[in-house]
């Protein structure tokens, strides 16, 4: 290589750098057009949104502002919010019970600890277990929690349990992918060292893998808890318990001041959870 070649290869204006940008821009433009995105429509229809939010002056409570403050209703919404948080928490534990073992089996480096050799049998086992685990995780997470909720409602009827199972399965799939990515990015050195002591697979996981993935694990689990609380707020739309039941009911009956109150409670709850999560993260990471 000479200096001229170096200058050419070090330039950021090469096909290699520019082509992804051009490609993404093209996809954006095509998608924008195919989905009939139109900012003009938003500006023109802005006043419709304003009149929807300010409601009908002749109908009491149809405006979003001011939010409705009735003691007995407020108590009802807060109880439903607590139930939503409880649903999210139980679902989170359920999802960890699914995702933790599945994420280990969906991580190539972890499977190499279980099947370290280069023999045909070990290679086959690594591929088969990885494939099945990823397939299961994909099914769990690609089906939306609302669909899972409808399926569970058909089996066990209306109520929070269907919502918990729906959230648990869906989040189990999402967490499997997130935790597996964390597992695959660990430093292989400590694993190599613990394997070299002759420790069994569970002990290698306990001493070499878990301590390394713990910050990522805590971070992802807290993020999913916050996400589960938001999702659980919607599951009531299909009768799967939580504050969503009241939200859906009030939206349908155009009691928008009550809708505002419920949304305010959800936003404040998510904000508090975010603050608590940040404090826990700081302690663990």
């Amino acid at each position, binding site marked *: 290589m000479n200096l001229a070649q170096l200058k050419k290869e070090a330039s950021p204006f090469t096909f290699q750098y520019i082509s992804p940008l051009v490609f993404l821009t093209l996809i954006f433009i095509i998608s924008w057009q195919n989905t009939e995105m139109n900012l003009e429509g938003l500006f023109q229809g802005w006043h419709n949104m304003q009149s929807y939010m300010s409601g009908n002056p002749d109908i009491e409570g149809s405006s979003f502002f001011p939010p409705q403050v009735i003691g007995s209703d407020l108590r009802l919404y807060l109880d439903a919010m607590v139930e939503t948080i409880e649903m999210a928490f139980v679902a989170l534990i359920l999802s960890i019970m699914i995702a933790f073992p599945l994420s280990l089996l969906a991580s190539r480096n972890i499977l190499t600890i279980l099947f370290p050799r280069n023999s045909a049998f070990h290679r086959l086992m690594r591929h088969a277990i990885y494939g099945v685990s990823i397939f299961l995780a994909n099914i769990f997470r690609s089906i939306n929690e609302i669909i899972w909720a409808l399926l569970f409602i058909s089996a066990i009827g209306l109520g929070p349990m269907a919502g918990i199972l729906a959230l648990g399965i869906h989040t189990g799939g999402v967490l499997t992918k997130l935790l597996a990515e964390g597992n695959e990015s660990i430093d292989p050195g400590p694993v190599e060292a613990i394997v070299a002591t*002759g420790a069994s697979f569970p002990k290698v996981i306990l001493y070499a893998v878990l301590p390394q993935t713990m910050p990522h694990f805590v971070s992802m689990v807290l993020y999913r808890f916050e996400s589960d609380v938001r999702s659980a707020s919607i599951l009531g739309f299909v009768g799967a318990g939580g504050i969503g039941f009241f939200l859906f009911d009030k939206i349908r009956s155009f009691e928008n001041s009550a809708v505002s109150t419920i949304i305010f409670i959800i936003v404040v709850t998510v904000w508090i959870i975010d603050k608590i999560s940040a404090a826990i993260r700081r302690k663990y990471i």
Partner: protein
Amino acid sequence: MIHLDNVNLGYQHETVLKNINLEISKGEFVGIIGLSGAGKSTLLTSMIANVTITGGPYHVLGNNISTISSKKLREMRSRIGFIFQGYNLVNRLSVLHNVMSGMLKSISIQRAAIRHYSNADLEKAWEYMETVGIEQIAMKRCDELSGGQRQRVAIARALAQEAEILLADEPIAALDPKSAVQVMDILWRINEKYQVTIVSNLHHIDFAKSYCNRIVGVADQNIVFDGTAQQLTKETLERIYQTGMNNHLPSEEDTIPDTWSNIPSKHCPNINQFNPIPKVAA
């Protein structure tokens, strides 16, 4: 303890060392020297069956490791301690937990899961930490330690294994001269005190000459020297380091600066004549 009879070592599509014959007996302190890429690490890691082995037989602790089963291999590895150049500690765990990880083979899964150790295990760990001078920082996290301290933790972990063989892959390559001397002192002391067989890759010829009672030189895909430090002539070193090609042999000036003058002489008559191992204060 270790016996290689006409063994080829390498990786899936590459043979690094050919027709290797080597016999290492109990209590020896063997230094492996050679250029980077000559196959020192391949030879060392082959002793825990981490590379592709053909030919043979290749016996380690009575097992033919070219045909060993996974279960037997795990059992055999528990009798061999390995010290890595990059320490390979779990940095988020304390010194104690890292040392304890060397004992995992004998700790029940229930105790391991909650990291609750028996008094007997804690007493053993204390002894090993004392041996390498880190008992005062037992509850410190490893990411708060210096390189020399981390290597001492790694050695204590290997000791906790109660290993019969200790393999060290460039244990002092990443350390400053003072820490390097301390680590080599500790290895020598362990070799003397516990009669543990030590096989170590070393970049610094003078360390190998000072500490090892036997030196193995690797070059041209083979062992080209196997003898004592006194037998290691300039011509042999030239062959090991292929200095005919670039006319540069790592001399004492190259490998050990003046400040490294406190390397103890080889074969100290007894362990008490060693440099005292400085305790790390909490």
